[in-house]
């Protein structure tokens, strides 16, 4: 088991008073709340902060924690001394049933059976009730949304043993049918795939937030997708029909004559499926041949002479 440095987590000194602990906790909780902070690490950080506060906010638990000894640091391999908690009084029953039990091994081992957890999760955790709703995130490819796909996901689900009240985790594997047209940032609901209910309660639901893996070619904007398409100067100037990738294949794309870099062409209905379908936008990017030999250099010089232009004429000097 690895030691958790709760003072370090809450960014406070060991001699901070309860008021300072609370203030630092509140500040960090606001900063790292997963609904506010979109950093992928935020959720884990938020849980660590909550766990640290859970211990340090209760003077008796804090005293027991402090008693473990000084000189221990975060992540250090750690065995609790026997009877480390003897002589400390804790109020309330064992923490456990129905919390959002994403605590570290350290916490579960040391504090999991000590004084009660605060009133968090009163909605889901009460006795008669419905299982907890679970939340998770999956990263899918743009193609999965375009075609629809079935993905196998494995979540660590925390459950409470109905007989003993102990918390244990077990892998929860699901084949999830990803609906066609799902978009980044959308939440999907899997009814009955959340936590087990208590007593007669039904199972909770599982909610999954969808994010897209970065695509090598396409960018996504809502239902629309964007593609930068390199073209030659003669294709741009004279017009041409070129092959352009689209989701799930390729199409022949007609480039109008006199096109410039940045020209946006719309392929209607070639975006993410839905009502209505999204579009694909192709942004042309003119790529010029290298002047890396005499013949090419001569050719450019000839162009300069025969078709002079000043692309900066509107810029004022």
């Amino acid at each position, binding site marked *: 088991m690895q030691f958790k440095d709760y003072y370090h987590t809450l960014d406070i000194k060991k001699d901070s008073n309860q008021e300072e602990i609370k203030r630092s906790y509140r500040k960090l909780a606001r900063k790292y709340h997963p*609904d506010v902070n979109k950093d992928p690490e935020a959720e884990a950080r938020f849980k660590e902060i*909550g766990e640290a506060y859970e211990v340090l906010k209760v003077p008796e638990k804090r005293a027991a924690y402090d008693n473990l000894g000084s000189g221990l640091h975060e992540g250090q391999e750690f065995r609790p001394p026997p009877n480390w908690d003897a002589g400390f009084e804790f109020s309330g029953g064992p923490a456990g049933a129905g919390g959002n039990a994403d605590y570290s091994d350290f916490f579960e081992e040391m504090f999991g059976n000590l004084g009660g957890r605060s009133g968090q999760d009163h909605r*889901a955790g009460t006795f008669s009730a419905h299982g907890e709703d679970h939340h998770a995130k999956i990263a899918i490819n743009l193609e999965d949304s375009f075609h629809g796909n079935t993905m196998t996901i494995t979540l660590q689900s925390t459950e409470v043993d109905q007989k003993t009240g102990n918390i244990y985790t077990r892998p929860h*594997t699901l*084949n999830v*049918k990803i609906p066609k047209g799902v978009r980044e940032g*959308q939440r999907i609901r899997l009814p009955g795939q959340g936590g087990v209910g208590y007593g007669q309660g039904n199972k909770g639901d599982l909610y*999954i937030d969808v994010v897209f893996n970065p695509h090598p070619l396409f960018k996504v*904007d809502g239902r629309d997708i964007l593609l930068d398409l390199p073209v030659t100067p003669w294709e741009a100037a004279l017009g041409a029909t070129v092959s352009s990738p689209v989701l799930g294949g390729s199409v022949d794309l007609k480039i109008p004559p006199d096109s410039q870099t940045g020209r946006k062409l719309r392929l209607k209905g070639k975006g993410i499926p839905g009502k209505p379908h999204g579009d694909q936008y192709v942004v042309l990017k003119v790529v010029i041949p290298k002047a890396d030999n005499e013949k090419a250099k001569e050719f450019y010089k000839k162009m300069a002479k025969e078709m002079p232009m000043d692309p900066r004429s509107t810029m004022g000097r």
Partner: protein
Amino acid sequence: MIQEKHLKVEAIVLNRSLRVTVDELCEMCRINREEVIGMVEEGIIDPLGNSRQEWRFHGYDIKKIQVVLRLQRDLKVNLPGAAVILDLLDEIEELKKGRIKG
């Protein structure tokens, strides 16, 4: 080792075309009617329909309610405070996409 059977689960996308009644919304979010009415009055969610009996909510409302409930639980934010946070989060999202200019 016991090979667990993996059931194929149909996912429901919480998008704009999904429509749910007040009762379904309450059941999904584990809240009561009064809480829903409070959020409608605060302008957090905006149902279709003229009367409370006809109210229909769409999928994004469910996500919004879940965010509000978590903010209330974790940060002790009140309802107007949560509404401000939701608006600001939307604005940040738009700014990131570069849709709001100067």
